[in-house]
């Protein structure tokens, strides 16, 4: 019963209910978490026999000196810095536009949200077909306007731009839904009072809606950044199983995949996974810190 004290018998009974979740979690979340830390320190590791001969920092030293890893970090950072602000700004604009109870708004909401339920790989293959040099839709449109066709997928100057466009397209839907949820939760009375005081639509937005929407915005900023730190499927599909021309779209996740699966260097892959986790984790903490400070200011 709920308010009685636990006994040995009630603990055993509860254990039966808990066992399935706990066993799977121990095997596939707790143990690999420990193993990720251990593996990244294995330096002479025989993957087939599971024999470890030495421990140390060699994997991290390797990453520190590996130009390919530097490229992966650089590409990932550029991608996040490019995609995150644009996605957040665009989705806020669209959410503000859709925040009406028209029938059309409902239909448009569904359309904007479609990418969320769509397989990233499948739609990535469609994007590949759109961006192709020969027969691709985009170049056909450019040529209709008398412009030169661009080899989007094989020119290193454009490859990261193409990936960013795909990531923005994919990320909009969730953020719009979240902004709309945030807008729905706002207390309409503030906006009504501001209107009575003669505030213009722009003043209402900057002085009422935006400050109230800030917590949701911070959440969306973290979420979008974290998602784009972990981009892999889009790259794989856009370039049919490669990291783009001259590794132009090599992301940290793609590096991890390449090291572990293609090159069989699992310990280096584990170390790079840990570094990716540090990036994402510190970002979350940083944004959380800003969030708390903002909370104090507004009070």
């Amino acid at each position, binding site marked *: 019963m709920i308010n009685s*004290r636990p006994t040995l018998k009630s603990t055993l009974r509860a254990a039966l209910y808990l066992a399935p979740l706990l066993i*799977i979690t121990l095997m596939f979340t707790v143990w690999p978490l420990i193993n990720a830390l251990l593996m990244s320190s294995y330096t002479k590791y025989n993957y087939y026999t599971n024999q470890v001969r030495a421990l140390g920092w060699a994997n991290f030293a390797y990453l520190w000196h590996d130009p390919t890893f530097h490229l992966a970090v650089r590409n990932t950072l550029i991608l996040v810095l490019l995609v995150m602000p644009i996605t957040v700004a665009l989705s806020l604009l669209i959410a503000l536009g859709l925040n009406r109870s028209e029938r059309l708004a409902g239909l448009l909401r569904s359309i904007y949200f479609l990418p969320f339920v769509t397989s990233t790989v499948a739609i990535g293959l469609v994007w590949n077909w759109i961006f192709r040099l020969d*027969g691709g839709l985009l170049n056909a449109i450019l040529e209709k306007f008398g412009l030169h066709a661009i080899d989007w997928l094989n020119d290193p100057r454009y490859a990261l731009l193409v990936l960013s466009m795909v990531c923005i397209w994919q990320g909009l839907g969730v953020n719009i839904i979240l902004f709309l949820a945030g807008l729905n939760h706002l207390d309409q009375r503030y906006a009504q009072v501001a209107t009575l005081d003669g505030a213009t639509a722009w003043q209402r937005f900057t002085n009422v809606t935006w400050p109230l929407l800030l917590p949701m915005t911070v959440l969306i900023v973290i979420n979008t950044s974290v998602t784009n730190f972990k981009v892999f499927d889009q790259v794989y599909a856009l370039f049919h199983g490669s990291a783009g021309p001259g590794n132009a779209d090599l992301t940290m996740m793609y590096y991890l995949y390449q090291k572990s699966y293609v090159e069989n260097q699992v310990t280096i892959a584990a170390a790079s996974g840990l570094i990716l986790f540090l990036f994402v984790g510190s970002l979350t903490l940083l944004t959380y810190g800003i969030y708390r400070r903002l909370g104090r200011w507004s009070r």
Partner: protein
Amino acid sequence: MTKRLLNGTRILCLLLGAGLMLLPFIWMLLTSLQPASTTLSVPTHWLPQALQWDNYHRIWQAAPFARYCLNSLLVTSVTTAGQLLTSILAAFAFTHLQFYGRRILFGLLLALMLVPGELLLIPNFVTLAHLHWINTYAALIVPWLASIFMFITLHQAFRAQPKTLYYAAHIDGASDWQYLWHVLVPTNRPVITAVALLQVIGSWNAFMWPLIVINDDRLRTLPVGLMAFTSEQGTNYPLLMAATVCVILPLILLYFGLQKYLVLGITTSQSKGKSL
């Protein structure tokens, strides 16, 4: 007057944006109905000259496509059902039963929410290799049978349930097991549907994990199987697009059927910091 003009511009911009969102879907559909020979010819045909429904017939012969479909259905349904079962049982124990170490255990599980799946990818792969599970259905399913996120969401829902129902059921002679499946689960159907739907989307579209744990063509799921339609020599785009339609369409239909649950699922998942 300016107000109407502004409103008109707003709607026009939104429609234009929606058109851009739909563009890849439309292009996919149009290409999937083109005959294979025309697609790489340089003056692009915008509309198919004659609708080639035959492409949809041919994909079933071009690759073990039916097998990929069955694999995806199997993995998605078993993973989702398994996660629901483990999460419902654990959430019930944490909210309705008394046991030693309840608070500590809950705190530990909550902390595990912060661990990103990407960190676990490599060690899990190594674990499976040592279990000799690479290239088995078990590799696709077993590691995903528990979801901390789903557990926490259901825990929150079950905790909000008035306990008077539980006492009343007990007085009427119902066991815990009966109360769980005949009262608690049916009354929480919306939130259960929402988390299940998120998981169905996640499993159906999962790519990186099936890519690294499966080499055998007969065990591939749809997203990985799609890559079989691309080739170095030249991809047959109408066939590839017909195949992508088959991967994307089921979830779009599901989405239109269960849209409100999906919105519920996303808004609850965000408050728990799960990145989608």
